[in-house]
């Protein structure tokens, strides 16, 4: 039920945006992420964007995972 998918914003209107979800073009509501811009990634749940993905934090997380993976040898 709480499934959310990341999607890239291709076009945006006042209340809606066309996003790319795994290669499919879908129209979603953007009333809850009013700052969203074309090329941003958003989290989509049940037809509404709930968050704009923060790329800076996403990058920090990726670096952290890679470091953690080599934290110590088994």
């Amino acid at each position, binding site marked *: 039920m709480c499934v959310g998918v990341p999607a890239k914003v291709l076009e945006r209107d006042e209340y809606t945006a066309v996003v790319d979800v795994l290669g499919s073009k879908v129209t979603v509501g953007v009333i*809850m992420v009013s700052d969203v811009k074309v090329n941003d990634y958003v989290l989509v749940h049940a037809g509404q964007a*709930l968050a704009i993905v923060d790329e800076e934090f*996403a990058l920090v997380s990726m670096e952290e995972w890679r470091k953690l993976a080599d934290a110590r040898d088994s």
Partner: protein
Amino acid sequence: MQEILKETSNPQLSLKLLEQVKLLAADYIKKYGRRPAFMEVCGSHTMALARTGIKKALLEHVRLISGPGCPVCVTDQKSIDAMIQLSEGDNQIICTFGDMIRVPGSKHSLMKVKTEGKDVRVVYSPLDAVEIAKKYPDKEVIFLGIGFETTIPVLVVALKMAEELGIRNFSMWFSTKLVEPILRSLLESGEVELDGFLLPGHVSVVIGKDSYQYLVNEYKMPGVIAGFESVEILSSIYKLIKLQLDNDINIINDYRSMVTDQGNPVALALMDKYLEPVDEAWREIGVIKNSGLDLKKEYDYLNAKVRFPVEVREPRKTKCRCGEIIRGLISPEECSLFAKACTPLHPVGPCMVSGEGTCAAHYQYMRED
């Protein structure tokens, strides 16, 4: 960005992280003489833990307990029966999320009602139901609104749209649940021994990291907000063990690309405008004070419970043990019906029906035979 998204489910990285989790769990076991026990309280986590194989791979290292995270599963039988009875009315179109359609009621399911000729539709978004109401002005369109905080603001957007468009043949039957009251109830019952919570990433998008501070302040219970891919989940389990080993009782936001400290202010404001806390009944747990949200009185015209009230009897008892499963007291294999009388094709309880139910997850991914 695509590269980062792919990295969240990178198999090599996942395997390396799995080894690191096992090593840290070994430290924990050495220190405390038992496995660390963590509960996930999101159905999408339940399914992800089973689907990725993490739960099985960590069986001897970390005790992962599924909690009350699947909205359909935690909805009490009487509410399910009421929604099914509602759907038997005439001159109406019932719209719902896919999870609801096969949930067994005391008499039958929405699917059965549909096959008997009533207009019951599965929609992807509640807004689709508003569109249906626009298209069929001579029918009453009722959306069965279930879900936790991730879904609740999406339900409200549909109500707002119906209100703004002046659509008077649309209403919603609310049966929503909130995370905080059920976590408090679980902790206060003391029924399950826990060392921390794997906190729901998408609920947290709405309510924010700071909303969990009561876990630390009042219950001395750590939590890590987790994403849903294998690398994200393993990272969060690792951090939970580390918090306990370091005796650092805290909340960590391990999904910072999505979750902020304060949550989504627009979503929270929308919920606040239309909804108010109500006592909700949880499956075999009973009524928990202010554990759900329903429409405020001034929106009675959008409230299906007010416009189309139904009376249902007390539901009959079955041997289904969903109530114990959602509280983390037993695993599905301990229920005598599991994989015998109760299967995804012939489910006895909601935990086997829902795509996020613990029984469905175990049936699909964790059975030995």
